[in-house]
């Protein structure tokens, strides 16, 4: 039994699946950069961006609900922006006083928080679309092709490879604990143990996992060194992009620039 649920990739034959990974990665990055550069409160631009995400999602054949559900993972991070509704100066929306002082919610502050939440939600969805339609090895190859530092790509690759090993190991630890979590035949005793004791056991499990990961890291490095690893992974070159793929890449980038210009003009 292995942990399957971690891999976001869903095999498929949709146009988005078939698009070259380099084009997908470049366009996703361009989309996310555009989204973050669009000024706060440029609602028309947000609608355009949302329309793009939506059409990509529809083209993947995975169903929109899949993306919406996963994109909520980004919301806790957007919460970090929440204090802005109080700290940004502007037209007051509501004011109240308490013992600690006076709090004022400003229109500009609300606008900024909503914008940040929307931006992270849109960016997240595009990233999910990329991960769901591109197998991870392809994504790594695309990162190399886009000249992302090789060491960084190697770290991503190893992390991905051993994340599953680690998750499996954690699953087996949890099972081993469950197998010994039992009730005495003598019904007078209360099962479960003290909360401090249980916390200590969990700490022991985490420590066990850390020690084993550490040792595994050493063994992996030895195995790589034994095969001539010198800090640089060499891979076969990717085939050149076809004209149609260049066209999609160019078109996508142009759309991003246009949206950005439009948003700046409107603001």
């Amino acid at each position, binding site marked *: 039994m292995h942990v399957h649920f971690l891999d976001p990739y869903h095999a498929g034959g949709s146009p988005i699946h078939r698009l070259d990974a380099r084009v997908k990665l470049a366009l996703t990055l361009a989309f996310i950069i555009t989204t973050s550069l669009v000024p706060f409160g440029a609602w028309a631009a947000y609608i355009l961006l949302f329309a793009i995400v939506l059409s990509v999602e529809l083209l993947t054949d995975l169903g929109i609900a899949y993306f919406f559900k996963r994109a909520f993972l980004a919301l806790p991070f957007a919460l970090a922006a929440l204090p802005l509704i109080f700290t940004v100066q502007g037209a007051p929306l509501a004011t109240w006083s308490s013992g600690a002082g006076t709090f004022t919610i400003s229109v500009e502050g609300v606008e900024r928080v909503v914008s940040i939440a929307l931006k992270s939600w849109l960016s997240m969805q595009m990233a999910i679309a990329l991960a769901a339609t591109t197998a991870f090895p392809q994504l790594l190859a695309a990162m190399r092709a886009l000249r992302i530092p090789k060491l960084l790509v190697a770290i991503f690759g190893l992390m991905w490879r051993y994340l599953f090993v680690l998750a499996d*190991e954690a699953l087996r630890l949890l099972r*081993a604990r469950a197998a*010994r979590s*039992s009730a005495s035949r003598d019904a007078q005793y209360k*099962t479960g143990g003290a909360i401090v*004791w249980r916390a200590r056991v969990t700490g022991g499990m985490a420590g*066990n996992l850390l020690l084993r990961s550490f040792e595994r890291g050493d063994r992996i490095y030895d195995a790589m060194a034994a095969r001539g690893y010198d800090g640089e992974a060499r891979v076969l070159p990717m085939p050149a992009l076809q004209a149609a793929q260049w066209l999609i890449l160019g078109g996508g980038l142009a759309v991003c620039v246009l949206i950005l210009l439009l948003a700046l003009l409107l603001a």
Partner: protein
Amino acid sequence: MHHTIEIRELVFKYPDGARALDGVNFYIAPGEKVALVGPNGAGKSTLLLHLNGILRGEGSVRVAGMEITPSNLLKIRAAVGLVFQDPDDQLFSPTVFDDVAFGPLYQGLPEAQVRARVAEALAAVRMQDYAPRVSHHLSVGQKKRIAIATALSMQPEILVLDEPTAGLDPRARRDLIHLLRELPQTMLIATHDLRMVAELLPRTLVLDQGRIVKDDATRAILDDEDLLRAHGLEKP
């Protein structure tokens, strides 16, 4: 006492729909010691995880006279001691004592009883002197013994072991076989070590592709070279 294992029409599907267990049936009588053999990926470990309700499939699993249900899971786990293949998965506490004491402590036994149980379990695997040691630094053979002690400290009626001799040197393997012979529990052992099976376990179940393809006396199975070859095994 009901040291029995009774499995009827057990089916277990992976999330992707593949059938890991495809209608498994067998009965193990009190005190019997039985081997479970078969190629890698046959479903042996998956089957063992059903015996104390870590995995739940369709069909019926009765152990120690109880049908496994969510409400009696904790009782089942006290009755069935499961020893995992990799002792590092089982030994997660700072010291050997803590690991062996986990079961009794979880059961809420008073301290004197916990200490007695630990001493008894460590004595059974002849590791009395190791209680204060750090599990992480022990040899594989020693870890295996401690892992068995962690199950014995719950005083189970049934002992289920996954690949107990894997990775052991000949002496550690020999010691382990002697140890398993001495233990009185009903036993089901999943293994590739057919020499141990011949020596220790009078009855053998052959599992392949999620089904019991043969259930017979160990001698009869080990003499049937065609059967062994067909299921990825080799006459010892």
